[in-house]
């Protein structure tokens, strides 16, 4: 919910300005410090939370500041322009503006823009844009004219889009408005004509904007009191051409139509805008917050002493002129929901927070500004509340949850568990989770019909479980042949015993394809790669199998016999995947990545039936071929098994079942190809061993080249 907090006056003395109010309020490089530029001759640096000026600088009598002072975030210096053309750069230590760095420019400056993360930008009245560094290097450089003769810049803004600075400025000529978007990185200037729609005669009084992924959303407040939105693309399709953009009504009559000049507005966040001016029904000036999503007025604050039609918004503070004083109203917003917007949600005022006094009481706050004190206080309250919540209620919640597990239905447990997991994690989170899962498994064992699958999945996905923390979990999953849970476990647990890994492998190999189709297995890691597989297979296999063969249905069982039947097609055949993508996903992610120790795994691998061994070997051989296809010897996809993992598994399988594999006729071809490739590997290794010495010599030669010898005389210039 958007809320305005109690405001305070920044300047105790009235600004020495005319009715126009200050020239500008800009952020400085320190948080909480702002540069206020008077429309006369003075720049003052304020610390807002202290309501205290930290520094003040004035130009000479007779000179006048024409552009609000900004801070160069890269150097921490301040920049101001007086008499339209004279640029001054100074920093905190400087006292007299006359003695600081000065550069006289060849054209009149409209504004200097400075934001975090990029160098300041100077916008000239003729529409030309220059970076500050480039300008200071050559102050008298010629400035070109961009906009036409009678066009006048009305409003401008500098912002970052994906770390690229973008400048937008609006000009007016005879009641027509144009928007220029200048991308500083590419120096592309796009021009757009703003079409006003039906309200031809209305005058735009104020602009504001926000950016999303593709569009600049330019909002304008017209003299009829309505807010319109215009979408300008950030990446124009054709930057050369003049383009037109239409505006659409966003909010109706937020200010009274016949308001005097004092109207301004600014975008606060995605859904909120702040409007300064008299509302339609009243005559007194008001600051109001509107929700644009739900078109509702969120809150408003009366400003009885009138205002100047200027509004700045930085961080969490709204700056405006109230009477003769610059006033700051802190603004807080939370994510808006329909309920919140309609006022259905009960949001009781926190008893701990109380409205801040209008002026700081220096006796009590002792160095803490109102802002910091406030945040400090609220933080403290938050912390206290959190610790209370985490201390007792957490324990309560876990015991309650355990009680629920013992008697309630699966559905109910799931809901309770989700609630429990939503609470912030504490230090002993994993032990609590361990208790919960042991409770669940205990009930599973006691009641054969009870199997809270979703809850278990949720718990596994908390990433805090390990096999030793809940040894029963995989047992239960194996019993139920729940492939999905097993896959998750194999991915998440670092310490699965080899016997269990082997049992999982057995299940993955033996489970029917139809039952695999039904389960929801994460095939993410093989998806993009099996796509290419399928394509390849299509191409190749259509060559071999003329008709009546659907490669989608292809699986291993008929793959091996076919190998035997059609030996002439084997070269092509060997590159096709012997298993379905889902099964491949199971193998790849779950089995190949799991940690094991050979001595413990070997005896279990001996238990695999011959058929499964050949299938798995075929798949591994296929992966190996895929691997060796590219130079880096890697498989595509996310987190693929490495060549070493594949090789190790081939070796293990062969070691464990060598006699069996030798006896099976289907495996003969596979063995032959494996033998061939081992032979080639050995020869490569021996060759590499032979040339290792030469490699080293080459390296030495290379080093000698960079080595300058024992003595040289060189020239060095220090900068």
């Amino acid at each position, binding site marked *: 919910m958007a809320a305005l907090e109690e405001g305070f006056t920044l300047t105790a003395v009235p600004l020495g300005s005319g009715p126009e109010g200050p020239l500008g309020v800009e952020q400085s490089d320190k948080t909480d410090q702002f540069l206020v530029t008077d429309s006369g001759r003075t720049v003052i640096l304020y610390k807002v939370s202290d309501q205290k000026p930290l520094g003040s600088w004035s130009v000479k009598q007779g000179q006048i500041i024409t552009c609000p002072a900004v801070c160069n975030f890269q150097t921490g210096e301040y920049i101001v322009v007086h008499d339209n053309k004279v640029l001054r750069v100074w920093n905190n230590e400087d006292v007299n503006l006359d003695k600081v760095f000065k550069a006289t420019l060849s054209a009149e400056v409209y504004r200097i823009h400075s934001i975090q993360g990029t160098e300041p930008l100077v916008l000239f009245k003729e529409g030309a844009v220059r970076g500050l560094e480039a300008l200071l*290097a050559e102050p008298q450089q010629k400035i070109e004219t961009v906009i036409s003769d009678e066009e006048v810049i009305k409003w401008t803004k500098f912002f970052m889009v994906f770390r690229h600075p973008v400048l937008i400025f609006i000009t007016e000529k005879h009641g027509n408005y144009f928007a220029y978007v200048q991308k500083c990185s590419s120096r592309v200037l796009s021009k757009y004509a703003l079409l006003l729609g039906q309200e031809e005669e209305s005058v735009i009084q104020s602009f504001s904007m926000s950016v999303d992924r593709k569009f600049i959303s330019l909002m304008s407040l017209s003299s009829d009191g309505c807010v319109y939105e215009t979408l300008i693309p950030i990446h124009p399709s054709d930057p050369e051409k003049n383009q037109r953009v239409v505006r659409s009504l966003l909010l109706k009559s937020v200010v009274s139509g016949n308001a005097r000049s004092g109207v301004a507005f600014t975008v606060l966040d995605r859904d909120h805008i702040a409007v300064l001016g008299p509302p339609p029904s009243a005559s007194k000036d008001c600051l109001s917050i509107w929700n644009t999503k739900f078109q509702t007025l969120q809150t408003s604050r009366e400003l009885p002493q009138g205002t100047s039609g200027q509004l700045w918004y930085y961080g969490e503070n709204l700056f405006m002129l109230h009477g003769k004083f610059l006033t700051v109203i802190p603004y807080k917003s939370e994510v808006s929901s329909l309920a919140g917007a309609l006022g259905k949600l009960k949001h009781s005022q926190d008893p701990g927070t109380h409205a801040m006094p209008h002026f700081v009481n220096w006796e009590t706050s002792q160095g803490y500004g109102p802002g910091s004190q406030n945040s400090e206080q609220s933080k403290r309250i938050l912390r206290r509340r959190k610790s209370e919540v985490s201390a007792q209620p957490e324990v309560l919640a876990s015991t309650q949850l355990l009680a629920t597990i013992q008697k309630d239905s699966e559905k109910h447990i799931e809901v309770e568990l989700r609630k429990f997991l939503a609470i912030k994690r504490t230090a002993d989170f994993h032990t609590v989770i361990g208790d919960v899962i042991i409770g669940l498994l205990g009930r599973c064992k006691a009641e054969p019909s009870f199997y809270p699958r979703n809850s278990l999945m949720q718990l596994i996905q908390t990433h805090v479980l390990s096999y030793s923390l809940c040894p029963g979990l995989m047992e239960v999953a194996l019993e139920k042949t729940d492939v999905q849970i097993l896959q998750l476990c194999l991915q998440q647990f670092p310490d699965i015993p080899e016997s269990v890994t082997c049992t999982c492998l057995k299940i993955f190999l033996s489970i029917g394809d139809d039952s695999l189709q039904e389960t929801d297995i994460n095939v993410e890691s093989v998806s993009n790669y099996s796509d290419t597989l399928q394509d390849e297979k299509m191409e190749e296999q259509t060559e071999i199998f003329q008709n009546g063969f659907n490669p989608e249905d292809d699986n291993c069982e008929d793959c091996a016999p076919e190998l035997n039947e059609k030996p002439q097609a084997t070269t092509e055949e060997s590159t096709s995947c012997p298993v379905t993508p889902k099964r491949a996903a199971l193998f790849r992610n779950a089995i190949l990545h799991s940690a094991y120790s050979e001595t413990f795994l070997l005896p279990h691998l001996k238990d695999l039936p011959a058929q499964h061994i050949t299938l798995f070997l075929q798949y591994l051989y296929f992966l190996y071929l895929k691997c060796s296809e590219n130079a880096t010897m890697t498989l595509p996809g996310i987190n693929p098994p490495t060549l070493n993992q594949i090789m190790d598994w081939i070796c293990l399988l062969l070691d464990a079942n060598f006699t069996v594999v030798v006896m099976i006729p289907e495996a003969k071809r596979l063995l032959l190809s494996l033998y061939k490739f081992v032979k080639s590997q050995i020869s490569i290794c021996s060759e590499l*061993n032979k040339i290792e010495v030469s490699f080293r010599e080459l390296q030495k030669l290379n080093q000698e080249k960079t080595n*300058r010898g*024992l003595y040289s*005389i*060189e020239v*060095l210039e220090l*900068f």
Partner: protein
Amino acid sequence: MGEFKVHRVRFFNYVPSGIRCVAYNNQSNRLAVSRTDGAVEIYNLSANYFQEKFFPGHESRATEALCWAKGQRLFSAGLNGEIIEYDLQALNVKYAMDAFGGPIWSMAASPSGSQLLVGCEDGSVKLFQITPDKIQFERNFDRQKSRILSLSWRPSGTHIAAGSIDYICVFDVQSGSAIHKMLVDRQYMGVSKRKCIIWGVAFLSDGTVISVDSAGKVQFWDSATGTLVKNHLIANADVQSIAISDQEDSFVVGTAEGTVFHFQLVSVTSSSSEKQWVRTKPFQHHTHDVRAVAHSPTALISGGTDTHLVIRPLMEKVEVKNYDAALRKITFPHRCLVSCAKKKQLLLFQFAHHLELWRLGSTVATGKHGDTLPLSKNADHLLHLKTKGPENIICSCISPCGSWIAYSTASRFFLYRLNYDHDNISLQRVSKMPAFLRSALHILFSEDSSKLFVASNQGSLHIIRLLEGSFKHLHTFQPQSGTVESMCLLAVSPDGNWLAASGTSAGVHVYSVKHLKLHCTVPAYNFPVTALAIAPKTNNLVIAHSDQQVFEYSIPHKQYTEWSRTIQKQGFHHLWLQRDTPITHISFHPKRPMHILLHDAYMFCIIDKSLPLPNDKTLLYNPLPPTNESDVIRRRTAHAFKISKIYKPLLFMDLLDERTLVAVERPLDDIIAQLPPPIKKKKFGT
């Protein structure tokens, strides 16, 4: 800032000795390191790992064991059969005592620190009582068949474990008899090796003995029953060292393959109190044998044949993740081994047993930044001066005019007169050195080469006037009464009027050479001084400390200068403070009084005091020339610290004249090339 011709010297063929032992002292947070040439160094881990004390080596004194006892007393023992105690104040050997058991292989101080145990070649284990000023032999334990290579006390002090060849022996301290003999398997990867050497043992308070051996095993034994509890095979080569933490919850072992393994005692499950030793982390910071390891409360320390001392902080023990938590690799001594005769362009290099004198070459060519100029004359090796006797050189110096060379070993002081006759050099030793000039920690000549300043141990400073071929003792500054701390750094002002001297902990003393009295003392600072120099004309004393602070103290005014106050107020740039090698040399530009040149092992810096100081936002080190020649940019980016990192590792840098620098580099590759080859590991195939 200006252009310099840099003599880039890489012919200083210095190879540090390999590290043999390290011993960590928890009380003072200091680390003693002994090297294969018998030298012992003491590092202050609280003062940015600065090597604050140094004991020179000795040819016959190969140190095999090093330990702290009775608080802060340091003992070593070696293959010459002697136990040596070091005097940490006077920086010399306090006494050496023969243990009469042949070469000593191992030594351990009792948990209380009052007894010392040595294991000898003849198989005897000897117990010594540590008395306030000496050690006294007490008794022998049961004699074993072969040499005792490792020893460890049970923290309760009742038992010891001794590692020999093929077996570990557990002794009862009270009776001195062996109660268990635990035989170690000789099998190594299925092949029976000749012998299994127990390189290290550690006795835990629960009675467990951990042993490391030449078959690559880490084994856990139960000393009550004498049985093997657990076996970790961690390497294909020897495991050579072990060190255990004080809490006995973690230990570290080093292998001949250069790997260091960290073992930790972790609980088996979350709830049970049962704990087991688990190998947690391997570190590979060495290329050669890790001969010694130590375990400080927050870091693993290792050193070996590849001469690096590596300090690897344990991240879980580090409270603040600041720069102290980074890995440290110390390769070069924190002293200056090079001296320079500016006028004659001579460099004197100090090695363990000889000195080398080189004359720099010259060129007539000029060039721009980055050019290598053609040499019109190459550098000459003029002199190779071998020391007499087995002792290593402590310090050496060549006079600025190049006609005197002085050096000192632990017991003798040598002064030579050099005569140059065109290309011929004749060397003449100045004989009959006075009795008080026996050993020096630092030697310095005055700028006009007419005076010699010698800092001897026991804290006295001698001034000697040099005449053609002879000398005359002028004065000796005695240390302040009550202090015995030796001065190990000297600096003399170019006009010869002031002499500054600094010890390892107390402040810097400034003496007036004209009036021969103490002029003032610079206020003591928490961190040891790493380099000293007095600026010409202004007589400002510039002091660099191991925490990277630099002070400037005006000797005539007896106060810190304005510039020093300003930089202390503003603070140094954070990158400057994060450098991990100390400044080892400071010099000045003869024509520009505002410039100070200083260097550490990885950079040199010219501080221009007239420019504004950098703050944390400005770029401290800008290797590239300003691309934009605009004055505005230059004005805004220029700051006082002009840093160059071109020459590294840098052992010495000085200004020969206004436009000429000399930089002595020692590339690590050249050092590695001179080390014995590491254990070969096959890269391809199995």
